[in-house]
């Protein structure tokens, strides 16, 4: 019989206000094997821990039950305390009487009863706990960054600078991401490309960084420190080693009608293309759906003009398998589709555009060479209306319930730039709230109003109606004047909500990283672990975790890098000893456990078994404890009951259930 000590925590009033802790102590002393029980206001405190230490010494305890908060909070604390006092840490059990009891109940009598039941179950389990020893697993000292926007680039640069090799996987032909599409950045109005391209060059030339552009992550297996990833390098049809980036192929290509994705489809590009002038790598790709040669077999002009002989129409997708210790998700965002917002006439009029499209129009490399023009007739707009919160803060299933966070600032930026460059153009902004928290942000917005005369109207727009004369009639409201407004505009700009990149679901599934209802990746803890995913070894960088602007993205990218560096700096990781183990005498070698194991931890070997005097060779399952993550899938699958999870054995679970039902 074990000598068990039960320690009941008040957690200030968190537990003690709802659970009669003295009563729990009293009931604990009646349990078999319990030789010591006490309560204390804060068990996790130094003083609380020293009481546990004292009890271990004086009463020769060989099993502990701590009735306190969730094991997620303080299991590690109490295990360490036990270890320091000569007790195996796995002889400690936590009865969660806070989250599972006091916080969710109001009636003291009932809550006390439930706390006692939880205590009883933990005591029953600890009787069967075996001392376990943690093993170790090695760490592959290389990181993978998924996404080559500013978040991915910054994370990769920071990891590379610390001396660890990093691979960036980017699905587009060039790194750069959304930031490369922006014209100017708030609140300093510096040119986006001017501050981004040096970072792109740094990333490309860094000895520790390998770029996989036009590539996608195909498969992920393994676990923290030991991921194996298949990367699909899509066929570029251009040899990256031979191409000199001269650009002749793009000039000569006769197929020039494909929509230019980089310019948000506002103009066209050739079938062989680099997305933008500063693309890295400066190697074009052939769009097989537009290439005349690929479609009809006739053409081959690019091949003829390519002096480097880099064109290769026969190239195939290649799968590269690499090993990583850590993975950073930096998949970024896109603007939401506006099909459900018929009232803004986005699909009806070319002069109703999204802010990201305006960004391209204002850019010197954009479809209008940087001139502010209406896309319908090329005329300069004299009256521009900006509409805020298009799809943001919408809980009506048409849009997104969250605030996209960046729109107030970029609209102030656009309004200011237009008023500065085209002083005779009037700018009106319809807003619900102006949200500009951030260093120098509100000052920036006020400059737009006070120095540049941008007309901010508190209210929304109900309808945008294209008129026969080509103008747009905007029906809105001024809530401060309590007046409905009809305004003729030449151009309407929609501050369209942002949403996580649509590929994020696929990637999250591969990584077993969780995502929320809006497809943003979930943090391990929203306040205290904001750059870690709940899946060990997976980290988050940039907008894939939630809306944020460039400074915040860069800060978070650095934070994610630090977490990765902290992981890669270790030579080995302590593994969880609560792994599966097969009972040789019961295993019939059916392979069902290996089929369900998500970590590939189970293999089979033929072994000479002495089964109650019968000696025979049998095929039995063997668990690699370094790979096993203790998920328990095999234990419920095993038809002969041979698989058991150490620390959570079938006997322990049944003992708990029995104690609860007693």
């Amino acid at each position, binding site marked *: 019989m074990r000598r068990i000590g039960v320690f009941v925590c008040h957690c200030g009033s968190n537990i003690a206000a709802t659970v009669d802790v003295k009563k729990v102590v009293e009931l604990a002393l009646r349990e078999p094997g319990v030789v010591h029980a006490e309560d204390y206001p804060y068990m996790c405190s130094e003083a609380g821990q020293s009481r546990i230490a004292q009890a271990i010494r004086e009463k020769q305890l060989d099993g502990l039950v701590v009735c306190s908060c969730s094991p997620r909070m303080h299991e590690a604390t109490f295990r360490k305390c036990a270890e320091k006092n000569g007790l195996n840490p796995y002889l400690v059990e936590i009865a969660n009487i806070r989250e599972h009891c006091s916080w969710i109940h109001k009636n003291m009598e009932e809550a006390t009863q439930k706390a006692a039941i939880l205590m009883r179950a933990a005591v029953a389990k600890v009787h069967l706990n075996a001392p376990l020893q943690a093993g170790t697993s090695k760490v592959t000292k290389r990181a993978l960054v998924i996404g080559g926007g500013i978040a991915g680039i910054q994370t990769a640069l920071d990891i590379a600078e610390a001396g660890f090799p990093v691979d960036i996987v980017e699905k587009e032909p060039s790194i750069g991401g959304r930031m490369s599409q922006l014209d100017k950045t708030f609140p300093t109005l510096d040119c986006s490309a001017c501050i981004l391209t040096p970072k792109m060059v740094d990333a490309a030339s860094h000895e520790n960084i390998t770029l996989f552009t036009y590539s996608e992550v195909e498969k992920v297996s393994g676990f923290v420190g030991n991921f194996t990833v298949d990367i699909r390098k899509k066929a570029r049809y251009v040899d990256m080693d031979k191409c000199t980036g001269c650009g002749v192929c793009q000039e000569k290509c006769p197929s020039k009608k494909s929509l230019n994705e980089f310019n948000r489809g506002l103009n066209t590009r050739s079938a062989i293309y680099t997305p933008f002038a500063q693309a890295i790598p400066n190697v074009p790709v052939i769009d097989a759906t537009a290439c005349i040669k690929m479609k009809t077999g006739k053409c081959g002009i690019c091949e003829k003009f390519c002096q480097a002989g880099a064109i290769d129409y026969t190239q195939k997708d290649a799968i590269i398998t690499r090993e990583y210790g850590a993975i950073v998700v930096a998949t970024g965002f896109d603007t939401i589709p506006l099909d459900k917002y018929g*009232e803004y006439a986005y699909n009806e009029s070319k002069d109703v555009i999204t802010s990201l499209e305006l960004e391209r129009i204002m850019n010197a490399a954009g479809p209008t060479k940087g001139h502010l023009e209406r896309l319908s007739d090329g005329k300069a707009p004299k009256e521009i209306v900006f509409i805020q*919160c298009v799809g943001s803060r919408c809980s009506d299933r048409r*849009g997104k319930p969250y605030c996209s966070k960046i729109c107030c600032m970029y609209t102030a930026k656009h309004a200011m730039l237009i008023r500065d460059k085209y002083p005779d153009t009037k700018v009106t902004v319809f807003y*619900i709230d102006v949200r500009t928290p951030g260093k120098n942000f509100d000052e920036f917005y006020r400059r737009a109003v006070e120095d540049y005369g941008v007309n901010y109207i508190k209210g*929304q727009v*109900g*309808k945008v109606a294209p008129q026969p004369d080509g103008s747009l009639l905007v029906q809105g409201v001024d809530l401060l004047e309590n007046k409905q407004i009809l305004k003729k505009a030449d151009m309407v700009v929609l501050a369209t909500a942002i949403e996580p990149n649509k590929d994020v679901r696929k990637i999250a599934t591969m990584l077993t990283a969780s995502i929320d209802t809006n497809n943003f990746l979930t943090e391990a803890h929203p306040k205290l672990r904001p750059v870690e995913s709940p899946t060990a070894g997976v980290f988050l960088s940039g907008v894939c975790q939630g809306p944020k602007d460039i400074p915040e993205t860069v800060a978070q990218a650095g934070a994610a890098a630090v977490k990765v560096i902290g992981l890669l700096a270790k030579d080995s990781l302590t593994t969880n000893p609560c792994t599966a183990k097969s009972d040789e005498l019961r295993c019939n070698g059916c392979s069902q456990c290996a089929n369900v194991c998500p970590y590939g931890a189970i293999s089979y070997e033929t072994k000479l078994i002495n089964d109650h005097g019968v000696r025979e060779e049998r095929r039995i399952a063997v668990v690699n404890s370094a790979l096993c993550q203790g998920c328990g899938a095999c234990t419920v699958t095993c038809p002969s009951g041979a698989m058991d999870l150490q620390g959570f054995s079938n006997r322990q679970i049944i003992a708990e259930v029995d104690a609860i039902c007693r």
Partner: protein
Amino acid sequence: MNSVEAIKEISGVNPLKCMKCGKCSASCPSFNEMDIKPHQFVTYVINDDVESLAWSKSAWKCLSCFACIERCPRDVQPGRLIDAARQLLIRQRGQQGLTAEEIPTLLDEEMPQQLLMSAFRKYWR
């Protein structure tokens, strides 16, 4: 049941969901005819003043075109509130003193047909 609870039950609207964006008022074709504007409907309910809402001109100027219901980003749907306010009035038979004989004299070309029909149903007997 007080009138605030009644209007919430009839309309099925939670006025607290409103974020005061004004899209309802921006969409309303009868805006200029109304004394209480669509975006203010929720405020009257929240401030426990259903009385004013029910006796407002707005109750009879709403065309039930549903533009505000369709476009409300928060699913507050102010059109349902004003419709519920009308229902409240119509249900207070006697207190309001409207008789079937009076209806023809109230005939107004701008009056929504839907309203005439519901008044007729209520008082015909």
